[in-house]
């Protein structure tokens, strides 16, 4: 079947099976920043924005997204660069596998929550797993990004 998606503000027509999930379709069409992790909605590395809201692309059918806005990390380049800088400055980067999804979720959180405290930040990021770090440097980086109005 054909689906019409708006990916990173560009109209796209993708060919897929009715049972395909967005993760597979996006990767087939070379959106390789969308990564496969657990494939069962738990780890968060496949996160994309669906009409601006973070969702696990491994569990959203491509056909469901027909007519909707999809954003990958390439679609928020300026903000992702900024988030990346804060992560770098705080030494929060290791393998980088979870960075695109975390950047998208942090970006969505900044839009959704008004001046969140650390508990609210942690709660919003539940289900975004990082297997390298202990999250402490990430917490510092996220806090400094949220306060960055540049």
């Amino acid at each position, binding site marked *: 079947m054909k689906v019409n998606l708006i990916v990173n503000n560009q109209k796209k027509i993708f060919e897929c099976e009715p049972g395909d999930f967005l993760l597979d379709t996006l990767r087939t069409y070379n959106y390789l920043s969308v990564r496969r992790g657990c494939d069962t*909605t738990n780890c*968060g590395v496949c996160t994309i924005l669906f009409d601006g809201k973070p969702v696990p692309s491994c569990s959203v059918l491509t056909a469901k997204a027909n007519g909707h806005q999809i954003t990958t990390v390439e679609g928020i380049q300026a903000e992702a660069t900024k988030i990346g800088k804060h992560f770098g400055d705080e030494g929060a980067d290791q393998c980088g596998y979870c960075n695109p999804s975390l950047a998208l979720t942090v970006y969505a959180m900044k839009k959704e929550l008004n001046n969140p405290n650390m508990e609210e930040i942690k709660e919003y990021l539940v289900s*975004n797993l990082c297997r390298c770090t202990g999250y402490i440097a990430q917490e510092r980086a996220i806090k400094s990004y949220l306060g960055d109005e540049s």
Partner: protein
Amino acid sequence: MMKLVVTEYLKPKSLEEAYSLFIEDKKNHIIAGGAWIKLSLKTANKLIDLEELKLNEITEIDHVIEIGSMVTLREIEINPKINRLYNGILSSAIHKIMGVTIRNVATLGGSVMGKYAFSDIIPVLLVLRTRLVFYKHGEMSLQEFLDNPKMERDILLKILIKRDLGIGFFKKVAITPLDFSILNIAISKNAEGFKICVGATPYIGKLAVKAMEYINGFKNVSDEKLLNCANLVVEEIKFSKNNRASKEYREELAKVYVKRGLKKVIANEG
């Protein structure tokens, strides 16, 4: 890569069309949010998406909050009216379900129709005296729906919760934050009295009718009566073991948290 084999994916424009598609074949499924589809379905004929049917609104009519079956768990969690309902019992139960990302996908309708034994939502809806509105069967209580596993296929349109004054308590016990509950307790109190529900026992949430009758028989509740009530809950609700917890552990948890929950509700009332 997990594969789901589906013949067709449809977004019908009317309820009648959706209903006709749904009943024409048992292998046709309504997918609601679709959050569990990957883990629960391997093959299907037609998947029916209710997106076009305007079932994604939260409204209030005559002190009844009407939640469309396609409203996501996240939308409910952050809705100010629902946040104030029975001191936010439904919002706080939803808040503990996995992460924001999955709560942006899962819907309340899907959570009800799935009748999941591990559900943290069903016990809360039961103590909030929730009613459901179906396309063909009309209005019925959630309890009636749960008690009738042979009900013919139908489309859930709305979930109705009366916005009356009351106090709520919810406790989820899980091994890790992302895991399913090994037990959950929901308690409410309004002018009609207490409602107590225990879920993930590991069976679906069930109201503790005898315990409710006992505790509602008193105007003033002493510690001893609270303990008696908690013991009655354990006597009348069926607990079992599974890979997450033993029967005995669940029973002990239930005793402690029913007593603690009742105490908190009474304290909040004052």
